[in-house]
């Protein structure tokens, strides 16, 4: 195990490169996921405030229903 971690003296360089990469991946994934959830939530809130006439107009666009169902499922 110690041999694996030390990598003949290069362990610090090798693992810091891999850890930096993984931290960036995780950070980017979490930021983009947060932005997506925030927009879905905003959409669901705005949709909930529409009156019946506007809801029927909005429902004519299939994508609005898709976004709404996605935001409902993401809360479960």
């Amino acid at each position, binding site marked *: 195990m110690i041999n*694996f971690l030390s*990598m*003949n*003296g*290069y*362990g610090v*360089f*090798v693992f*810091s*490169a*891999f850890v*930096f*990469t993984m931290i*960036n*991946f995780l950070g*980017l*994934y979490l930021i*983009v*996921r947060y*932005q*997506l959830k925030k*927009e*879905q939530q*905003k*959409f669901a809130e*705005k*949709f909930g405030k*529409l009156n019946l006439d*506007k809801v029927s*107009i*909005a429902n004519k*666009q*299939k*994508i*609005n229903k*898709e*976004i709404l169902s*996605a935001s409902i499922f993401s809360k479960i």
Partner: protein
Amino acid sequence: MNFFNQSKIFSFINKYHNLILVFFLVVLSLGLIEALIISPEDYLQGDSVRIMYVHVPSAWISLGIFSSMAFLSILVFTFKNKNLVIITKSLAPSGFVFTLIALVTGSIWGKPTWGTWWAWDARITTMLILCLFYLMYLLAWRIFENKDSVVKITSLITIIGAFNIPIIKFSVDWWSTLHQPSSIKILSDSKIHESMLVPLVIMTAAFALFSLLIFLMKYNTELIKIKNKGLDRL
């Protein structure tokens, strides 16, 4: 164009997001085992060569993403298609992060190999310029509020930045640099041994899956933003 049906794209992304995430994690795990455990050390660089398995795929993908963005920006100018603008915008965040990873891991690799964290070598300098172009692109979307202007400015940034791509690619052939000439060639035999090529290919696949995942999530975010504005106009 049915291909650009936003509702279908949105539903496709929602359906397959988790599948792509799981697939990415499986390929990444395989790649990490290959890169850190199975692949041999280099006869000259020793174990430090393992940094190649994160550095090289990041550099390849950052170049690929910027080239795609430049190509899409030319199409945006030609066809004025809003969907192409969303696609280009959604590609940028992962491209920027991959460029940053390539620069930082390259710097970490430089210390044991060249004895320095940084050198104004042609390849490194042109990669830094690419990183700045990504940064300018992302900042332009935040700074400019007029939609028509921002589309023109961001498209111009990517088209001008695209001139840097062949310079990055051929910098190692045109100038005497610290970087070695490319070991992997599509049209002729590669100089890299199979035992190192396999982990490199697996890690590249994992990184490509990650950029696809981020692109799809970002694309959906942008679509919902537009639809949010649409609800305001009702």
